[in-house]
């Protein structure tokens, strides 16, 4: 048995602690973000009425752009991390897990960058 460090031994965190905490925080933020999105886009406006004019109108407002950017960041990060957790139940090797994490991170990064470019960049008239 290795020698024990003398007490007091304070609590430590790990990257999984951070991932777990972010998962909870993003979930709390997603409640208003996703519900707001669904209620406005799908119920009040309706998917069939979403035209380029409507999109341009939303693009014109900085507030809506910030809202959509926040939705994109939190929803997709939340989903990607959730996917990691599910897949790691089945993928047990250390190397395989590392490959999975890097792949998911790159996937998340590229989709988020693409989405952010569209949301923030807007339409070129």
């Amino acid at each position, binding site marked *: 048995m290795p020698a024990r460090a003398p007490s007091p031994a304070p609590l430590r*965190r790990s990257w999984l602690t951070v991932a777990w905490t972010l998962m909870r925080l993003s979930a709390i933020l997603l409640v208003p973000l996703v519900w707001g999105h669904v209620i406005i886009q799908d119920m009040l406006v309706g998917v069939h009425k979403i035209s380029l004019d409507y999109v341009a109108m939303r693009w014109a407002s900085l507030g809506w752009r910030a809202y959509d950017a926040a939705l994109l960041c939190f929803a997709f990060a939340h989903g990607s991390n959730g996917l990691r957790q599910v897949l790691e139940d089945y993928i047990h090797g250390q190397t395989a897990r590392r490959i999975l994490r890097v792949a998911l991170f790159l996937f998340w990064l590229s989709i988020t960058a693409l989405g952010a470019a569209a949301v923030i960049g807007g339409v070129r008239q």
Partner: protein
Amino acid sequence: MLVALKIKRFDPERKPAAWWSNYKLEAAPGDRVLDLLVRAKDELDGSLTFRRSCAHGICGSDAMRINGTNRLACKTLVRELGSRITVEPLLGMRVEKDLVVDMEPFLASYRSVKPYLINDEPLPADGRERRQSPAERLRFDDTTKCILCGCCTAACPVFWADGEYVGPAAIVQAHRFLFDSRDRGAGEHTAALLDMKGVWRCRTIFQCTLSCPREIKITQAIAEVKQAIVLGK
């Protein structure tokens, strides 16, 4: 009443695969499943193998899957189950023979949280015990009730999917010392809970709480351990 007792058997010296044995026994509603197992072994098939020791719900050695739920055979009455009783070994653990599973990985997880009081500070001035108020004792009372039977860990789908997860029982033990006002080893008890084997694998499925024969609020204890780590206590 006549009870149809169906038991999942395994004996690598006899057959490579598991098989089912069916017994018919006369039983009273107040009989325990353990009584039926003992009678089946004594009267019908001496090769039937299972663990039991205290027979009173204290030692934790006769945890098994009874009609699909992990329970102690000595605390489960025939009355609760009806006339058809199916008994299997705990899931997620390697079966050695019949209802006997290999508890060593489970106990290794238990040891990994250093389940003992850690405090290197000098003793109090009177040189006697480290005192604790009733309220401080109450803080971790629930998790002192664990008998390490394995019902909770063997009911956890995360553990089934990945046996390296320490499982609820080990986290309950970490909780018991983490919230003890006399303990100074929080970092040591939780060190093994920080990586992929640890507490973050818990998905709050509540299977552990439902299966605990001691009725420990296990999922709540796990949440308290997570919270302590996130907040630094």
